[in-house]
Structure formats: structure tokens, C-alpha cells
């Protein structure tokens, strides 16, 4: 019942929020800090409370045109300006422009004697005066708890603080009150009792010798908020809080393709290479040519006039350029043209978040089409596996929104790779190439597989991946009678086959000649027989003609005899006709 009521009021009157301008914090708080209310920012020493509070004021003054008052109870105003100058904040100038006002409250215990009743109206008046003089919308009290060490009458202090926070609300200023973290409590003096609208806890932890600052919203009355611990970091541009993942998965998916630089590999990927804006993982054991593939990809992008940003975590840029020259790849010319930029840093140089932000920043300034991280596995030395994964998810998210194609290389330690996914990111990437050593006949050869490639028809075949002085190439592995042959075995088989062909060719031509010869012999024989047949035929014809002639002559003679005997010519004619 009561819950329903609360919900109801929230829906009726949505809480107004004041954007902090701090990267990421506004996302987590769904818009910023509660407007016109105090927010408690607590944490142990050195976790960045003061910086965050001042960032809030400075961003307010510069980005949102909301002047702010900083009341410091610790450092002097001059010290403060100097300290935050390293973050790129020029407090002196902002003060001169009447955008902010710094009021330093100094309480020297030794100078002060307390006798009888008093209140802190002086503080109210000072703060009120400061707010009114620049029409401030934001106020920071850093760290008001110091009053507890300066004044002894805690009863008065507590009632006055309670009054102060009410007064701040009445003034309608959005305020941040910083407080030191106490043992077992959020603040040493229990300020959370008075400031209860929004409580943010900062934390500074060292895990595996790498320190990370984290932020958590403990409480945010009347608003939804991210409940996780979010890493944040402080660098020359102020504070950036990094939400673990972006909240939505609604990225634009282009159909444009980008070539890998190795024609045979493009052929394996449906003939056109990778998708633009996709993520590619090249994994493999040591020395399988991952960097070479990456360099070829970089070269292909730069040759088309695209910009490429290469993050090297293992080798220095000069080393990479030199090494790639050995496989006929000149990266130096792209560097000189300004299309290729290397950024080399040791993973242990700083924590993962710092790396991520460094990467973000470089990408934002260089605006590349292609980003290469070589190798991501080395980042594990800067954090634990789950952190690396979280970081890479965020990075891939970011790159996809920016439509940047990214290629990661990953070193796998175990030979059984198919089951073990690299940093668990293989499920995140769009294309996964695996370069693997194939050991046979006493030699190691490289085999390249396309394990997955989303959204394209890709080859399911293993290709032998060869690195020569001329460059990279993929050749079909030889499928011999004894299985798959690679390396010198493949060469041997090819030579064998070539000899076979030559021998067969020779054999075929010998047989052909034999046939011709046989035919000739046969033809000769046929000719002889023909002649023989002709002579026999002639002989036979001769006999027949002789017979005929003899018969004619005999007939003629008999006719003549008959004519002579009787003179009856007609009769003779008849006889001859009958004969015919």
C-alpha cells in the first residue's frame, strides 16, 4: 500500500536533475544529481572526493552556465587552484570571470576559545553572501566535517549542520557535501543522517598491485540509478566514470565491406573481406603470425586512404615497422603520411580503465576507420580476466557505435583452442580467425581457420598460412590419399605428382608412336596384298578373256561353215539369237 503511494508520487512529480557534466556519471544517475538538494559524496582519503566535487562546479560553470560556490574547509584557496590545475581547471580565471567563488574557511583550534552559547550563523551568512554575489546554482562544501575538529560543542554543530542542509534546500542550490569515510559507517561523523537524498561512495582499491578508483551510488531517493560499482579515473580532462556496459544494443549495422589485405583470406570470407564496423579476433599460439595479419589489415586500410590506429602492447612501433619490412610490408610510408598511428604502451603502465580511456581519447581525436589492438591478452597483466572482458565489451560497444572496424589479436597459451575462448570475447566478436600450429612430420606449419564470421558465407576449410619474403598467402592444404598434407609434405606430394605427370606424358607419347608404326606396317602389308590380289585378278581375267576369244573364234568359224553348206542365212541367224 505504502509502496504504491510512493510510486504514485514519483510518477506525478519526476525528480528534476542537475547534470554533473562528468563523463559517465550522468548516465549512471539517469540525468545527474537531484536538483536543489544536497548530495553526500563520501570516501576514504585520496579517492578523489575533492576533485569530483570541483569537477562538478567547474563543469557547471563552463558547460551549463551555472555558477558555483566552493567552500573549502581543508586546503587554502590558493592550494586548491594549484592542485586542480593539473586537471586542466583554471579556477583563478573562473573566479575572475565571476563564474565560481571559492571561500576558504579556516578554523584554528588554538586561536579559538569557546564561552557559552553560539551558533554558526556566520557560516550561513558567508555562504549566503557567496551564493548571492554570483547567483550560484551549485555549491560544494569540502569537507565540512573539519568543523568537528575545530569546534568542541558537538551538540551545537549537529543541530547547525541539520539547519544548514535544510537551508541549502531552501536556497534551491544543488550541493555536494564531501565527507571522510568512517570505520563501518559511510562518514566519520554520521553526516548521512542529515544528507539523505543522494549518497555516492568513492573507493580506491588496489588489486594485484593495480589501483582502481570506483564509484557506487549508495542511495538516490526518488530516482532509478545504476547500482554497480563503476570504475572511474582522473586524468588531465577531469573525471570519467565508465559504465560497465552501454545499456542498449541498437547499433547500426552497415553492409559495407572492408578488405583484409590478404586476397586469399577475403576469398575465405565470401570474397569481400570483413564487414565495416565489425570486430575481428585473430587468435593463435605464439609465433603464428597474428601481428603480420594485423599489419596487413592496417596496410590494406591505409592504402585505401583510411586512417588506422594501432595499439601495440608488446612491441614498439619501430620494431613492428622493421619486422614487417621482412615480409615485404612498408608501414613506414603510411606513418609518414599520417594515416597510420601507433600507440605503444606497456599494459602494466596503468590500470585497465586508464587504458580504456586512453584508447577512447585517441580514437576520438584521431578518428580512425580501423583500430588494431595487438595483443589484447597482454592486458590481463593489468587486471583480472573478468575486468579485461568487461573492458573489451565496453570497447567493442564504443567502436561499434562509432562504426570503427576493430581487429584484436589474442595469444592463446593452450594448444586446445576451440573450447577455450580468448578472454571470453570470442562470443562478442563478429569474425574469429584462428591461426594454429599444425605439427606433422617433424615440422611446424601454420593453419588458418575461419571459426566464425557473422553474416557471411565463409569457408569451412583449413588453409595453410604461409609467410614469405613476398608477404602473406594462404594455400589450399593438399588432401592426399593419407589425409591432409602441409608444409614440406605438401611440397613433396606436389613434386611427386609433377613427376608422375611427366612420366605419364612420356609413356603416352611412346605408345602413340608405336601405334603409328603399327599402322604403317599394316598399311604396307595391305598394299602388298592389294598388289597380289590385282595380279591374281588379272590372271583370272586373262583366262576368261582367252576363253571368250576362243569361243568367239569357234562360233565364227562354225557360222562360216554353215553358210558355206546351205546358204540359208535366216536359219543361221535364228540359231545365234537363241544362243544369246
Amino acid at each position, binding site marked *: 500500500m505504502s509502496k504504491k503511494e510512493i510510486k504514485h508520487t514519483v510518477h506525478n512529480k519526476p525528480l528534476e536533475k542537475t547534470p554533473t557534466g562528468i563523463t559517465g556519471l550522468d548516465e549512471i544517475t539517469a540525468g545527474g544529481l537531484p536538483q536543489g538538494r544536497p548530495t553526500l559524496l563520501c570516501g576514504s582519503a585520496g579517492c578523489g572526493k575533492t576533485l569530483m566535487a570541483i569537477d562538478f562546479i567547474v563543469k557547471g560553470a563552463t558547460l551549463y552556465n551555472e555558477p558555483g560556490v566552493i567552500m573549502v574547509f581543508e586546503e587554502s584557496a590558493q592550494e586548491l587552484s594549484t592542485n586542480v590545475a593539473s586537471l586542466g581547471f583554471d579556477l583563478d580565471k573562473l573566479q575572475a570571470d565571476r563564474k565560481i567563488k571559492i571561500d576558504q574557511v579556516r*578554523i584554528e583550534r588554538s586561536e579559538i*576559545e*569557546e*564561552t*557559552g552559547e553560539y551558533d554558526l550563523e*556566520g557560516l550561513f551568512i558567508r555562504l549566503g553572501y557567496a551564493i548571492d554575489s554570483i547567483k550560484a546554482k551549485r555549491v560544494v562544501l569540502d569537507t565540512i566535517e573539519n568543523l568537528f575538529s575545530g569546534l568542541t560543542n558537538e551538540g551545537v554543530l549537529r543541530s547547525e549542520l541539520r539547519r544548514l542542509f535544510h537551508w541549502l534546500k531552501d536556497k534551491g542550490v544543488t550541493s555536494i557535501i564531501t565527507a571522510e569515510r568512517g570505520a563501518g559507517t559511510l562518514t566519520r561523523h554520521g553526516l548521512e543522517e542529515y544528507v539523505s537524498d543522494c549518497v555516492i561512495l568513492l573507493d580506491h582499491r588496489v588489486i594485484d598491485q593495480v589501483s582502481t578508483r570506483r564509484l557506487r551510488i549508495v542511495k538516490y531517493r526518488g530516482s532509478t540509478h545504476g547500482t554497480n560499482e563503476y570504475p572511474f579515473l582522473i586524468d588531465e580532462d577531469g573525471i570519467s566514470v565508465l559504465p560497465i556496459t552501454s545499456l542498449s544494443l541498437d547499433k547500426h549495422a552497415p553492409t559495407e565491406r572492408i578488405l583484409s589485405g590478404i586476397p586469399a583470406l577475403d576469398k575465405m570470407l565470401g570474397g569481400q573481406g570483413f564487414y565495416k564496423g565489425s570486430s575481428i579476433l585473430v587468435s593463435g599460439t605464439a609465433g603464428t603470425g597474428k601481428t603480420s595479419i594485423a599489419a596487413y589489415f592496417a596496410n590494406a586500410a591505409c592504402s585505401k586512404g583510411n586512417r588506422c590506429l594501432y595499439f601495440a602492447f608488446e612491441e614498439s612501433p619501430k620494431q613492428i615497422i622493421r619486422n614487417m619490412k621482412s615480409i615485404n610490408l612498408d608501414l613506414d610510408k603510411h606513418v609518414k603520411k599520417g594515416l597510420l598511428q601507433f600507440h605503444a604502451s606497456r599494459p602494466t603502465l596503468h590500470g585497465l580503465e586508464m587504458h580504456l580511456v586512453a584508447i577512447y581519447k585517441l580514437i576520438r581525436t584521431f578518428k580512425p576507420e580501423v583500430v588494431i589492438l595487438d595483443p589484447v591478452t597482454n592486458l590481463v597483466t593489468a587486471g583480472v580476466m573478468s575486468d579485461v572482458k568487461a573492458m573489451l565489451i565496453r570497447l567493442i560497444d564504443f567502436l561499434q557505435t562509432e562504426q570503427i572496424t576493430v581487429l584484436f589479436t589474442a595469444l592463446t597459451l593452450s594448444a586446445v583452442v576451440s573450447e577455450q575462448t580468448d578472454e571470453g570475447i570470442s562470443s562478442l566478436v563478429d569474425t574469429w580467425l584462428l591461426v594454429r600450429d599444425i605439427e606433422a612430420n617433424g615440422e611446424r606449419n601454420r593453419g588458418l581457420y575461419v571459426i566464425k564470421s557473422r553474416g557471411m558465407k565463409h569457408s569451412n576449410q583449413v588453409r595453410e598460412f604461409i609467410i614469405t619474403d613476398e608477404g602473406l598467402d594462404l594455400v589450399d592444404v593438399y588432401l592426399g590419399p593419407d589425409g591432409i598434407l602441409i608444409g614440406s609434405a605438401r611440397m613433396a606430394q606436389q613434386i611427386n605428382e609433377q613427376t608422375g605427370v611427366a612420366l605419364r606424358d612420356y609413356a603416352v607419347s611412346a605408345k602413340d608412336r608405336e601405334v603409328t608404326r603399327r599402322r604403317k606396317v599394316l598399311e604396307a602389308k595391305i598394299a602388298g596384298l592389294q598388289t597380289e590380289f590385282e595380279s591374281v585378278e588379272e590372271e583370272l581375267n586373262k583366262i576368261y578373256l582367252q576363253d571368250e576369244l576362243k569361243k568367239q573364234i569357234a562360233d565364227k568359224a562354225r557360222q562360216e561353215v554353215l553358210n558355206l553348206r546351205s546358204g540359208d542365212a535366216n536359219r543361221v541367224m535364228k540359231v545365234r539369237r537363241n544362243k544369246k
Partner: protein
Amino acid sequence: MTAEKKWELRLYVAGRTEKSVMALSNLKKYCEEHLKGQYRIEVIDLMEKPQLAEGDQILAVPTLVRKVPQPMRKIIGDLSDKEKVLVGLNIIPA
């Protein structure tokens, strides 16, 4: 300002509250008793001149500030404890 006025005291108040009236009357009483003729009291109402609060680092009211003689001393409260005020102002030794 004459040389014999060797005590310069400033009392910061915020409006005519019970505490400030009390503090002022207490202060006048002690000064008349111990520093007759050699003191000057300046009362500053922060309600009227809020810009002056920062200069002397005023937080609490009423605050009594001993500007002269140096070093500066501050006493906060309604000055009801005579002993403490006199010691605090170094009028009588502790």
C-alpha cells in the same frame, strides 16, 4: 585612533539576537572592569555587512576578535564565562 587605546576588539554578531546582546553587554562589563580607557569595541553586524565575514574567518556568532594586541585571538559564544574570556584575551594570565 590614539596610542593609549591598546585594545582593539571586534564583536561579530548576526542581528540583534539574545546571544549577541548578551555577548556585547558581557564584553562591555569586563572591559570596564579591567581595561578602562584603553579599549575600543567595534560591533559588526554580518546581516548588514556579510562581506566582512570572510576576512576574519568568522563562522560562529557571536565571535569576539582581538585585533590588537597581536596575535589575533578569537572567542566564540555569548562570553558568559568571565574567567575564560579574560584568559582568552590575555587580560589576566592563565
